């Protein structure tokens, strides 16, 4: 939790990782990719404030203690949601698998929500693993990478018949939150892998599922906004949006926030630190202090107040995941109903 100026914020970090990208985990023959990948992440890391940056060797592999301290003790996070990234073709034990995340999930009850992943090209075996993970860890969400190249397949779409089988299984198993990664990818080489029309269709066909587009579709935030405004069950995940822009490019951050508030709205935006790309502490504190620059250029965007920040930092995600939020963090706690609240009624 975070408290500022008498306001209490319940913080759900909806997008974070526990990875091992150290050389001892690099697959032989794929070292350049394993190295290139984590160095690419490290480039993003450099967009955070200077005093929050780590040396590369720690960044490649941080400890359980680092994570618990950075996220919970210093980072103001109440509940953190693991989002797995396998990358087993480059990292021997995977980069950040469900199994690796599960170690911390099981050791620290009440701190984490454990999401898993699936890939429709894994067929019946993949469905079995999905069922197993739900039974064992109570997963309510999945992280999907639609652009992944696999054994000659050039990625997949949420609208593929095989993917619909998995989405149906999600409905049946009680997985309600589909986090889709539509960000940068590598293969296949010629395609614009960020295309989001499949989410549009799947969101219409599965109204009982929530589709959280991570990084808000950056670098296609415009396409994302236009799609999300038409689908009530599509959400904007703010991981990377806050981390990469709020400190390094404050005016662009304000514009992105403006667009998201305009098209998607504060009820459908969720905070994510993307730890360990960046620590949550400066992101949470900076976000609570944030406001649009006092400039005509931002005048046509909706404003974001304390209640909106509370929703984005935790209350929206708590609803999506059925996380119980103590009363003192709820909107309007401890405040008498204002006369203004009845304005519409009295005017009628």
């Amino acid at each position, binding site marked *: 939790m975070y408290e500022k100026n008498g306001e209490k914020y319940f913080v759900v970090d909806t997008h974070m990782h526990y990875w091992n990208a150290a050389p001892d985990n690099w697959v032989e023959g794929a070292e350049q990719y394993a190295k290139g990948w984590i160095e690419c992440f490290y480039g*993003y890391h450099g967009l955070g404030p200077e005093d929050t940056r780590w040396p590369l060797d720690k960044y490649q592999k941080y400890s359980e203690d680092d994570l618990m301290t950075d996220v919970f003790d210093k980072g103001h996070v109440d509940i953190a949601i693991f989002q797995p990234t396998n990358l087993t073709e480059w990292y021997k034990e995977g980069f950040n698998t469900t199994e690796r995340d599960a170690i911390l999930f099981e050791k620290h009850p009440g701190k984490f929500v454990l999401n898993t992943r699936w890939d429709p090209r894994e067929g019946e075996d993949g469905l079995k693993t999905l069922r197993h993970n739900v039974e064992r860890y109570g997963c309510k969400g999945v992280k999907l990478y639609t652009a992944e190249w696999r054994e000659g397949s050039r990625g997949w779409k949420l609208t593929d018949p095989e993917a619909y089988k998995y989405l149906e299984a999600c409905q049946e198993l009680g997985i309600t939150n589909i986090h889709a990664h539509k960000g940068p990818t590598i293969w296949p080489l*010629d395609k614009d892998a960020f295309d989001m029309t499949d989410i549009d269709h799947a969101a219409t066909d599965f109204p009982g599922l929530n589709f959280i587009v991570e990084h808000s579709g950056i670098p296609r935030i*415009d*396409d994302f906004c236009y799609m999300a405004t038409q689908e009530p069950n599509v959400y904007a995940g703010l991981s990377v949006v806050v981390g990469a822009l709020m400190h*390094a490019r404050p005016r662009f951050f304000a514009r992105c926030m403006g667009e998201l508030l305009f098209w998607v709205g504060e009820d459908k935006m969720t905070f994510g630190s993307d730890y360990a790309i960046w620590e949550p502490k400066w992101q949470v504190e900076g976000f609570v202090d944030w406001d649009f620059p006092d400039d005509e250029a931002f005048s046509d965007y909706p404003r974001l107040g304390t209640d909106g920040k509370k929703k984005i930092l935790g209350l929206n995600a708590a609803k999506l995941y059925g996380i119980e939020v103590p009363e003192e963090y709820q909107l309007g706690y401890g405040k008498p109903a204002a006369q203004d609240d009845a304005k519409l009624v009295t005017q009628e």
Partner: protein
Amino acid sequence: MTAVVAERDRILAALGEVRDPELDEPITTLGFVSTCVVSAAGDVVVRLRLPTYFCAPNFAFLMVADAYDVVSAVPAVRSVDVALEDHFASAEINAGVAARAGFAVSFAGEAIGELEELRRTFLTKAVLAGTDQVCRPLLAAGLDPAALVTMTIGDTPPSAQLERLCRRRAELGLRTDPAAPLLIDPGTGESITGAAVSLHLARARASRVGIEANTGICRGMLRTRYGTTGEGEEEDEG
């Protein structure tokens, strides 16, 4: 010596015509040109760099191939050596461009088809973003949004933004004559009218924000990756 300097300026100016298709900005001002050397005999060496090891290879290929083409077209150039550095697909891209092989051949088995469709997609976004750049100052100066509907290119006050918008429209084969409507659907070329105007302007604004935010992230990562200023690099708004 002065002749070499002048020739180098011409090469850099030519490279300034090559844009990152996604960011719609010259590779020079973005800082992507790390080296540009011209010998007295007219042998040119250009080295390009990108913000990450994994930047999309399709866009990277377009930039290297375009750089090769514009430098080759400069008079008095005898030989051209253009190469991308520090990228996971450097070898394939550089060999493919040098052999003028095209993208699909350079990545046989990993890519299907050439990249013109991709380029069109991003030109479409550039036209939308350019529409915001042209219209926003007009609206800020008090123009009634309804007036935009009947405005033509010829009615629009001249500006660098308008010239840029017309160049992008021309690349897409869209009208740029004085009688052409200012607000058009960049996909179809049809004019935008009535209730569709406010949505069109909102999309134009979002497209511009998208491009500018991407550019901001790319510039920041390039700066983290390389501490040096590129040839012809210019700072942006931040």
